[in-house]
């Protein structure tokens, strides 16, 4: 039995430490991991817990991130709770095995401390790695600060391991802005946290020798399609379980999370949609702008990036008063519109209100996103709203050096 870890009612934790405390409290059986900036402290902290008797599971430091996820799969199939953490290039190296984890329906929890993808090499935060995971069949939860990195990691075990879900879950936090920024965090005591997470219930356990199981079979055109359809259905249907677990967490802690968070949207004339720690910047900017200019700005933030909450995004954007929406993508779009823009636009297309939607690329490689920048972009939306059409390029780059960079115009009135 692991040693008890004394916790204060309020601790000062950065996002990495918050995530590692959640892993400790979940009493994971196997952590297979490999270090990478900025998520390294998560596995270092876990190593310290192990060295001092605070965890009694196995801690396997493997030789690469691909092996970390491979090890998580082998361990999960052997019927126990499994988690790991990574960032950026490590996440990219894992990509092959991410699909295998979800296809094999193994509930692994992966904390992703978001960081840009090379080249050029960059250790700072953007959402390139998070976006890379978006078709991998994992549930993706997005945290905006340290408290959430802790809370949602606990929820992730409940969601992924739920017998109606049985899917792996990524818990995203922003590299450095969340992972290395110390904030007040209110943790649960160990026994309360573990009671919330619950005992692991093995399914198709390789160590149950009374019932041999084959994991990772092959299918071709005869069965592959049905497997993928079923997996997608499980992912789509997980919305209900996510809502239930978040509700239960609210009852336990008073902290409320929703698949889509919104702020001052009731009377909003323009809205900004964005992810991660920038949400907190945008909220401040919106509040200040309302006070300073009277411009009614609201904020919409998908808390659950996968399954993508089309239902709730549509609800948020289907408002008669809402005229213009800007989608902020913190990832190099690679020859397309930003992913968030594409998905939000698709959801908004089937609304009655059909607001004007534009796309900003921002903050790549950890470039700071300031309140002033947010205000400038919000104000620009007002111009679209007043004109009744998009007065700029549809996609623009914010805060990049050199001449103004933008793409595509609209002729739609």
């Amino acid at each position, binding site marked *: 039995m692991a040693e008890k870890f004394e916790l204060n009612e309020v601790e000062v934790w950065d996002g990495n430490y918050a995530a590692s405390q959640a892993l400790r409290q979940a009493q994971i059986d196997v952590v297979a991991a490999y270090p990478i900036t900025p998520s390294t402290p998560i596995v270092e902290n876990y190593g310290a817990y192990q060295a001092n008797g605070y965890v009694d599971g196995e801690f396997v430091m493997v030789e690469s991130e691909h092996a970390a996820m491979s090890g998580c799969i082998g361990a999960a199939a052997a019927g126990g709770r499994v988690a790991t953490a990574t960032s950026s290039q490590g996440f990219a190296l894992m990509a092959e095995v991410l699909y295998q984890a979800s296809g094999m329906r193994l509930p692994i929890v992966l904390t992703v401390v978001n960081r840009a993808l090379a080249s050029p090499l960059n250790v700072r935060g953007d959402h390139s790695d998070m976006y890379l995971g978006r078709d991998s069949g994992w549930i993706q939860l997005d945290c905006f600060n340290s408290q959430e990195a802790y809370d949602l990691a606990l929820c992730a075990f409940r969601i992924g391991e739920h017998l109606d879900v049985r899917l792996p879950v990524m818990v995203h936090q922003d590299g450095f802005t969340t992972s290395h920024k110390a904030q007040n965090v209110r943790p649960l005591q160990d026994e309360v946290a573990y009671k919330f997470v619950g005992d692991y219930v093995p399914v198709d356990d390789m160590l149950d020798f009374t019932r041999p199981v084959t994991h990772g079979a*092959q299918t071709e055109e005869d069965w592959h399609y049905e497997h993928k359809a079923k997996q997608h259905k499980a992912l789509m249907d997980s919305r209900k379980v996510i809502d239930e677990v978040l509700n239960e967490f609210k009852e336990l802690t008073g902290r409320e999370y929703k698949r889509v968070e919104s702020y001052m949207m009731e009377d909003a004339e323009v809205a900004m949609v964005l992810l991660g720690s920038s949400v907190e910047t945008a909220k401040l900017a919106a509040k200040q702008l309302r006070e300073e200019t009277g411009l009614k700005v609201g904020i919409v933030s998908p808390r659950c990036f996968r399954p993508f909450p089309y239902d709730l995004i549509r609800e948020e954007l289907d408002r008669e008063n809402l005229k213009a929406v800007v989608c902020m993508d913190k990832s190099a779009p690679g020859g397309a519109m930003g992913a968030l823009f594409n998905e939000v636009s698709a959801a908004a297309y089937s609304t009655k209100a059909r607001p004007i939607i534009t796309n900003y690329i921002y903050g790549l490689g950890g470039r700071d996103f300031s309140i002033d920048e947010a205000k400038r972009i919000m104000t620009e939306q007002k111009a679209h709203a007043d004109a009744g059409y998009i007065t700029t390029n549809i996609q623009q780059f914010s805060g990049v050096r050199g001449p103004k960079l933008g793409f595509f115009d609209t002729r739609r009135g």
Partner: protein
Amino acid sequence: MAITSIKNLKEFSTANDRFEGAHLLCPGCAHSMIVRELMNCTDDNLVLASNTGCLEVSTAVYPYTSWDTSWIHIGFENSATAAACAESMYKARKRKGTLKDPDAPVKFVAFGGDGSTYDIGFQWLSGAMERGHDFTYICLDNENYANTGGQRSSATPVGAHTSTAQAGTHSYGKKQKKKDIVAIMAAHGAPYVAQLAPNKWKIMAKGFQKALETEGPCFINTVSACTTEWKFDPKDTIAVTDLATDSLMFPIYEIINGHELNILYRPKNVIPVEDYLGAQGRYKHLFKPQNRHVIDRIQNDVNEFWERLQRREEARI
């Protein structure tokens, strides 16, 4: 029933089988003989992992499985990691008391072909060996990527024709020497490493048992004659394997704790490599006058390697 209580081949052929005969391997493929022997040499429960390859694609095509035991396949490169971390999970659950039957004996075994062992899965194998998990890795070495139509791997020997190292008017096939995977694994300090062959089935069973009983990471390279890509008649699998071991193209030996080398089979009559090469279509071109020098090179390499093995056996270093 374990092989210790199996007296002869007839009994072996009718022994209780956890690897079902219904699979899609080619007629005459040695993989099934090797796997079956591994599974018959212990009565313990088995947790098996397979890399992508001939064995995997032929034994677990949904909705069927040939495995009457726990079995997992993830990708081309990571069976070592899958078995190793399943073993870690076993340790954790045993400690925490969450196993259904905590006293049931269990062995963890990973399989890979030579492509996934010598090439693409090399790092995963090396990592698992270094970490010291209690498991055995078995390479089914047929010296090429047979599952995808016979491309060269770093286990393909000099002079062999493969689809990506072809024999032609300007080429005698593969130019580079086969990687010495056994030495590399022994250099990891593994407690038990061996090279075994299914024609010497009693030696192979003993080697498998040693590996399973030895605590820590063990590695076994097995010679798996490939009727399809080596190009011989499916009925001749064991005959070709006999030529391989008796020509010393595949010496049978073990290395304990990285340095104690024991030769496990000394042919009474060592045959020239030419006899082995001549039995397979993949070496046909070597018998053209302009390529005879390659046969001489192969014979020379085999002689040198056998000499080295004997000297290492004597020196115990």
